[in-house]
């Protein structure tokens, strides 16, 4: 508006009048829209029948989505990705129209800085207050302005106790045991997870700037590479329960699922530390069906619904009151519910700086070769 006036010369009174009239109208409309929005920060009914969900592969119960459709009349189009970076790359390359995405903690921060996320107005949701205290104010989204929690878990390792007899309990022992099982071990296809674990195994801190420490991590992972069966972030449940790999970098929930298929499966919360990761629902800029996205977010904050997600994926969630809907056998298993001491080993991980990230890329490329 300021710009408009400064551009108009005195000789154009009429036009000025017109312009200010137009401005006034647009202001009125402009105010009217947010007001309508304030009442409608949470939609009273779905708009259209579509919702484009962009989620990790194999990360949500299909039956849950079917029930969502049955209860709300909104069809969910599911697109999947295998890593945060892949999802980010897709959005940055100009994919618009995803309504709900599922970024992990550190990725929320990156995406928010890049201006890729929109405010979700959680407080207007009927279920907006259902957050467990420890998930209401995370480092990556203070006050939960952009996200609501989905599931969370820890990265440790799993093994078959009938095959691996050394009972490894730390990353150090994990890496040391790998050469004993040539062609029978797997690590993630994820530079951050793998390099962090290697650093931890030697007593160093993740995101270190020390070149000697990174070199040591690179040497370590290069030395175990010939013994790896696969470098993969998906398909590991079957690999572990089927015995294709007997010692694998694993998430706790995936390991619990493998355990259901093979009782010899053990999950380890490494004593030298591990990341606690938290996945979240967020609405990206450019979403087509924002109202339906909000309905979905709210629906997923209902304890019964999120509990069904937890029961299917075997990861715990951040919604209060969901405990009573969780499967008792799962809840009793430490692979699903770590003890307080085990939980204390988990650290919420902020992303490394760009400089350190580039160093990580060097280490990773040298490793992959």
């Amino acid at each position, binding site marked *: 508006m300021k710009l408009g006036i400064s551009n108009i010369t005195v000789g154009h009174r009429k036009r000025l009048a017109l312009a200010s009239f137009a401005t006034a109208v647009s202001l009125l409309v402009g105010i009217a829209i947010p007001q309508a929005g304030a009442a409608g920060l949470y939609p009273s009914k779905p708009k259209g029948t579509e919702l*484009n969900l*962009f989620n990790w*592969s*194999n990360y949500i119960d*299909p039956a849950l989505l*079917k029930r969502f459709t049955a209860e709300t009349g909104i069809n969910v*189009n*599911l*697109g*999947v990705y*295998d890593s945060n970076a892949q999802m980010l790359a*897709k959005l*940055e*390359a*100009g*994919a*618009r*129209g*995803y*309504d709900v995405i599922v970024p992990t903690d550190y990725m929320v921060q990156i995406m928010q800085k890049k201006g890729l996320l929109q405010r979700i107005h959680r407080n207007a949701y009927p279920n907006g207050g259902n957050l467990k205290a420890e998930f209401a104010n995370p480092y990556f989204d203070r006050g939960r302005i952009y996200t609501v929690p989905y599931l969370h878990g820890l990265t440790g390792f799993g093994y078959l106790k009938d095959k691996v007899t050394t009972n490894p309990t730390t990353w150090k022992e994990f890496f040391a045991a790998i050469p004993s099982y040539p062609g029978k071990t797997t690590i993630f296809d994820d530079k951050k997870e793998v390099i962090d674990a290697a650093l931890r195994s030697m007593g160093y801190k993740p995101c270190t700037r020390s070149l000697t420490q990174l070199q040591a991590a690179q040497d370590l992972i290069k030395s175990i590479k010939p013994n790896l069966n696969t470098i*993969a972030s*998906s*398909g590991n449940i*079957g*690999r572990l329960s089927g015995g*294709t790999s007997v010692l694998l970098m694993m998430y706790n929930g995936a390991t619990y699922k493998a355990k259901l298929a093979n009782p010899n499966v053990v999950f380890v919360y490494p004593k030298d530390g591990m990341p606690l990761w938290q996945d979240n629902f967020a609405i990206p800029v450019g979403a*087509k069906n924002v109202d339906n996205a909000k309905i979905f977010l709210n629906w997923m904050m209902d304890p019964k619904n999120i509990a069904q997600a937890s029961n299917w994926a075997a990861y715990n969630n951040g919604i209060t009151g969901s405990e009573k809907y969780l499967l008792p056998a799962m809840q009793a298993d430490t692979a699903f519910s770590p003890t307080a001491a085990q939980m204390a080993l988990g650290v919420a991980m902020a992303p490394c700086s760009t400089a350190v990230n580039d160093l990580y890329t060097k280490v990773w490329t040298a490793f992959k070769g």
Partner: protein
Amino acid sequence: MRQRTWSVAHLPMIRPMGIASLIFLYLPLLTVLIFSFNKSEDATVWSGFSTRWYSTILDNTDLIRSAKVSLSIAIPCAIIAALIATGLAIGIGKATGKLQNILRALVNAPLVLPEIVTSVGTLALFSLVGIPLHYSSLLFAHVVMCVPFAFLPIRSRLRDFDQNIFEAARDLGASSVRVMTKISVPLLIPALLSSGLLSFIISMDDFLTSLFVSGPETTTLPIYIFGLLKLGATPEVNVIAALLLIIPTLGLLVGIRWTTTRRRSNEARNK
């Protein structure tokens, strides 16, 4: 002296290699076909005949949705690519101009360039110009890929015709538009069908370009299946792979039969 009669068997290694390569080509396909009827939960160990995994496929909404997406791209893609390729074949005639050669080389480039190059190039272009990754952007990326393939049958059909027909028509004063609408296009109709079929299959099959250029509503069948394959062998994937084997093969056989019977009946009529 015994008469030496010549046969293929006299050329060394020819017959055993030929037979071996057919076995090599079909062993994997037959394995998939057989194991899709496996009763076992284990994808690779045979335990008895069953069609149970085929029925689970029908409940897989993601699979069906992605198949619909693929069809919604492949059908228009086949039509557009066949039309554009027809235009190209008719328009260039026997031209040998330098500019036209360059342009034709550009159109045909997807035949010879590694797909990874063209797909990241397309992605980079779309993001540079600010074209959102959507249905139409994916559709056009597919059309570009299919046009040079669609061009092949049309071109060879045009060349096969008695060139005198076209020349006579021109000499008698028919305008080029009239030559096109009255002679070229009617003659090309059977070739258009095979161009369309070729484009349809290439579009249905494409993975890399779709991976880079797909947007929220365009998770195609190959993208969905690639995600499944990363999980390793499962009974469900056995069935999907078997269907991907059976459907195009049947389509192809029906197509071949249809064209041969058509040709025969045409020949009979001409007699």
